[in-house]
């Protein structure tokens, strides 16, 4: 097999990445600007023996990918803001029942119906804690069609490894942008499968974690007769709805399996960090304008770095603690009125975290960002 070079939009690249990662089930509901993913999957999945189903709404789409994941398949759905809101209910069920799956959210400008065809990055916080209760999950953010392909594969691998719904936080611009995508031969793509139990059914405790805090998963029809519930449950999977100790043990593990494995999920592009006094922090499409602005500022002698987050959640807290003393000022560039900014503030301290928001409908220009760099740098 050979490497191939394709000309893909971000949406198509994400769909192809899913298939390369082993996704064989897609349930979705049409919504701009993500619909091309469903359309593409409806044509492509049957060719590889996979199943596509268009559900009646996003509540159902999310429920169906959980059900199919318990049926042993790698599963995905794709949506945008309003649909992402509807999916939160069963994203919570997925977190509670530790069901691997991938949710693509092609962000558009909100709130509510907002600007359906135009870019936004306002779902940063919703992708972390959009469902009720206490939980952690993983969110990745690509900046190009190539990364839509690569990070979708990574999203599946992380979802399988940590048994957690994993978000691919795209944006409208990256989704509709066409670029060259290098598709490696299948045998060069790293694909992770969920761990299966190695003990006999009578000895299997379905929610007893292994050393990485993740329990091996027995799927339907394998003879393990697992009970799966969104209620607080013990290691047998049985509901224990009046015992705070069972609740603590379960929720602590659901959060810690992500928090304590953050290093393994960490993924950033870091530029010009060595002597930097000001660090820009961005992701997705905004990071591309940021990169252009940073390169221009460097040429003019400003000691500016770029930290582009490809893994947004879990946030690389340890990394930011480490660099907090070396960097004088931070500038967060994002298409919202302050979301990732708060996370940066929380980790490096307030007062020196500057913000360049956009409200949706347009991408920052490098000129705007360059002007802001100068302003922050010169202390104006």
């Amino acid at each position, binding site marked *: 097999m050979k490497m191939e070079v394709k000309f893909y939009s971000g949406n198509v690249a994400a769909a192809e990445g899913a298939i390369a990662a082993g996704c064989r089930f897609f349930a979705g509901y049409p919504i701009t600007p993500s619909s091309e993913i469903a359309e593409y999957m409806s044509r492509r999945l049957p060719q590889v023996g*996979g*199943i596509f*189903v268009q559900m009646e*709404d996003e509540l159902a789409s999310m*429920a169906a990918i959980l059900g199919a994941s318990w*049926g042993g398949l790698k599963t995905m759905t794709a949506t945008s803001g309003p649909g992402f809101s509807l999916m939160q209910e069963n994203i919570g069920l997925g977190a509670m029942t530790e069901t691997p799956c991938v949710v693509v959210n092609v962000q558009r400008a909100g709130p509510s119906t907002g600007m359906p065809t135009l870019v936004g990055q306002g779902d940063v916080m919703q992708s972390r804690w959009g469902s009720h209760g206490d939980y952690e999950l993983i969110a990745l953010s690509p900046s190009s069609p190539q990364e839509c392909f690569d990070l979708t594969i990574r999203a599946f691998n992380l979802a399988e490894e940590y048994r957690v719904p994993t978000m691919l936080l795209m944006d409208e611009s990256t989704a509709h942008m066409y670029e060259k995508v290098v598709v490696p031969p299948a045998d060069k793509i790293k694909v992770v499968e969920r761990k299966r139990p190695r003990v006999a059914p009578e000895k299997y405790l379905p929610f007893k974690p292994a050393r990485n805090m993740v329990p091996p998963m027995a799927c339907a*029809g394998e003879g393990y*007769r*697992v009970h799966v519930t969104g209620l607080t449950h013990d290691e047998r999977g049985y509901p224990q709805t009046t015992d705070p100790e069972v609740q603590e043990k379960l929720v602590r593990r659901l959060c810690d399996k992500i928090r304590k494995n953050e290093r393994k999920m960490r993924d950033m592009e870091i530029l010009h960090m060595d002597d930097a006094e000001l660090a820009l922090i961005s992701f997705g499409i905004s990071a591309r304008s940021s990169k252009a602005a940073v390169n221009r500022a460097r040429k003019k002698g400003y000691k500016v770095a770029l930290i582009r987050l490809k893994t947004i959640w879990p946030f690389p807290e340890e990394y930011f603690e480490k660099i907090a003393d070396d960097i004088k000022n931070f500038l967060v560039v994002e298409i919202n009125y302050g979301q990732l900014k708060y996370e940066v503030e929380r980790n490096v301290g307030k007062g020196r975290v500057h913000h360049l928001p956009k409200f949706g409908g347009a991408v920052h220009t490098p000129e705007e960002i360059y002007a802001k760099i100068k302003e922050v740098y010169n202390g104006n």
Partner: protein
Amino acid sequence: MEIEAKHHPMDKYLRADRIPHIWCPGCGLGTALNCFLYALEELNIDPDNLAVVSGIGCTGRIAGYLNVDSYHTTHGRAIPFATGLKLAKPDMKVVVFSGDGDLFAIGGNHFIHAARRNMDMTVLCVNNYNYGMTGGQLAPTTPMEARTTTSPYGNLEHPFNLCHVAAASGAVYVARWTTLHVRRLKESIKEALNKKGFSFVEILSPCPTAYGRRNRSPTGLDMMKYYQEHSVIKHGIDPSEADIEIGGDIIVGKFVDIEKPTFNEMVKELIEKARK
């Protein structure tokens, strides 16, 4: 004399370590579950090849008592969860066992669309006319004028006739029984389990604790007597003629039994074609 039952004849299908169950005295859920278990046994269904999916509510707890792959999902979402499961595992038998509020209020959209698609699954709906677990509130099945904790002056809403909804949405098998009709109910569940496509059995069931005592039937026995005196078997009638009214007859029987290609079959054909 003390009578102590150590085993239930159907223990092999139950997670016996989870009994006692949470259901109230006089509730019909035990009877409904029992009929289901006998249907499994008489059809010789391999428990390893059966998945039961429930939503939320009293009936929603059924999945948790069954010693099979069992999934207790979110409120109203048992059917779409089961849709994903059945598509991933086409050779398994997939049963959704849930209540009227779960399946027809919050989950109503999923019900009609799964029936429309002719998803290959059996849906068993225990209809007790109210939301029992949360304290007896108005449901989409509460008869007109009935009193519930959120219709203290009597229900002003026209209820769903569930069998009519199922038939109109495209279900290939539709039947209604009460928990009084144990043998007929069991036979209908067997037919539904054997049916290819979307099969639906409505099981009218007493809820003396939350519904009956507010509607002049304070015990399970009162409601069973009502079933006995008012049930009329009418096989094959148009289910639109089987509305349920307070104080009226309850039409029971098998209303629909037709053949139609299932979604699973068509997906399988499509994949075979697409792979060539």
